[in-house]
């Protein structure tokens, strides 16, 4: 079966690198082709990497609290760049402070993210969702 490609990165002025390193490892182990743009990644870098590699999904991490501001507009930019339908996942500690996750999820879904994850989500969860969303049978 054809290998699916994921673009991974930590958005904005965020330097939290540990989770990113584990995600790269976990998604690679799970059989995906991982294109990691690392920390301090701009929206443009995510899109460029996705186009260049013909990626099937973009997985955005934001840990440091500015996620709400940094993630806004990414879907629109994807549309402008001709990859409007690409899967967009976001996870980490997306907002400032301990907030009720249902409302955080709603805000990010409204911004065009297909899946939104609460703090501490284990990689296995996203692997499972990717398989569903990309139609991969185990």
């Amino acid at each position, binding site marked *: 079966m054809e290998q699916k490609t994921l673009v991974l990165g930590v958005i904005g002025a965020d*330097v939290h690198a*540990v989770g990113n390193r584990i995600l790269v490892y976990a998604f690679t182990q799970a059989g995906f082709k991982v294109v990691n743009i690392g*920390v*301090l990644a701009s929206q443009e870098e995510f899109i460029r990497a996705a186009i260049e590699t013909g990626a099937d999904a973009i997985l955005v991490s934001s840990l440091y*609290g500015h996620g709400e*501001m940094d993630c806004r507009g990414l879907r629109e930019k994807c549309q402008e760049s001709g990859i409007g339908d690409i899967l967009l996942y976001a996870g980490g500690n997306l907002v*400032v*402070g*301990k907030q009720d996750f249902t409302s955080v999820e709603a805000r990010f879904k409204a911004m065009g993210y297909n899946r939104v994850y609460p703090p501490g989500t284990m990689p296995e969860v996203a692997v499972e969702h990717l398989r569903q969303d990309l139609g991969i049978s185990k």
Partner: protein
Amino acid sequence: MELTVKQMDREEFERQRQEVLAQWPTGKEVNFEDAVAYHKALPKSKIFAEKLAEGKASGITYAQPRAGVALINEHIELLRYLQDEGGADFLPTTIDSYTRQNRYKEAQAGIEESRVVGRSMLNGFPAVNHGVSACRRVVESVKAPVQVRHGTPDGRLLAEITLAGGFTDYEGGGISYNIPYAKDVSIESTIKYWQYVDRLIGLYEEHGVKINREPFGPLTGTLVPPCISHAVAVVEAVLAVAQGVKSVTLGYGQCGNLIQDVAALRTLPVLAEEYLNKLGYPETMITTVFHQWMGGFPQDEAKAYGVISWGATAAALGKATKVIVKTPHEALGIPTKEANAAGLRTTKQILNMLKDQTLPMTDDMALEQNIILSEARLILDRILEFGEGDIAVGTVRAFQAGTIDVPFAPSRFNAGKILPARDTQGAVRLLDFGNLPFTDDIKEFHKERIAKRGRDEGRDPSFQMVIDDIYAIGKGMLVGRPRS
């Protein structure tokens, strides 16, 4: 300007100063003479170095939180709460991440948006945007000394503004605020930025104003072996003192094994004094700061209180001068002021109950101290060799060579070759040495300890062990045993 450990000359400093103060409009508010006068009028109780000296003399461990929000009044309210309800001995002003990356426009947008939505949209206090007099309002609104805590590779303008604003302590350093906090900034340039900051503080000291400097000990906060953070701390202490800094607080982030943590706290000032002395620098006041566990926390608050308490215990038994406190919200998000004060009170209860207790010297402790001392000396001596005696030059080359290497760091100027893992008692050891200049004896010691753990767990040491260790404390353990 060529890289060297030597004190920056006046012209170079003034040339940069012009440039730095022009980076954002609030730079205009800085007036050095006025700032010196302002500091001289501060009561002793608001001066970090004075209170640290007292604590050091009486063997007390102080508690300090992290805290910062976007707007001034809210920030003052937060600090007052931590002082009055948390019993904080020292206060922080944690700077937001846009400011840390010198993105003042984005910080401004964050300020505006925070005003509109009525909650802080920034993860800290944008001190540059708020300017000098706002900082002074903060200092004047509280009783305890206030420190700038951040993570800024180029913190020159931030230093100018906050120090003119009456803050008496400045965290960071050319390595510790680069390697964990940046991706594309060369070490040469951050060392230079920080030499500017240290020189600025040197100037304050020459004018009779005491400003304490605190290299950021924990680095990436995740399984950093003591020899690495100690080597960085010593380098930054030397770099700072060379520019005229007179009082330095060296930091270390809890690893979790009590013996290793206490040994680390005890050896840190020993190493710093040894190298400052050897390199011919004047007597410096050295104090220590212990950071409660800096890696991933458990989400459950009751469990988080356990982790916080264990950090407070190691700080107290290791006789750190101060401890930086985590909160029960750590795993989830920036804490509310209530959660922050709760972390402080838990910590202070432990500090007070333990203040008259000590951990006696034992064979285990002596072994651990010797290991840390030997490893750190091997790294530091190689750095000095690389630099032909110049620690600034040597540091750049040592990072290139991977002679010093920080695990899990985002910076591309860091080799990223070493891999740490816990031994079976939870002490942090090395699974992969990268290019660390260790002797065979030392390597054997690490290998043997990790192999013992492997035997206990019935598996070969591998990256999976490292991952398990990264998750461990968050999942209620210290050693990441195989999931069953």
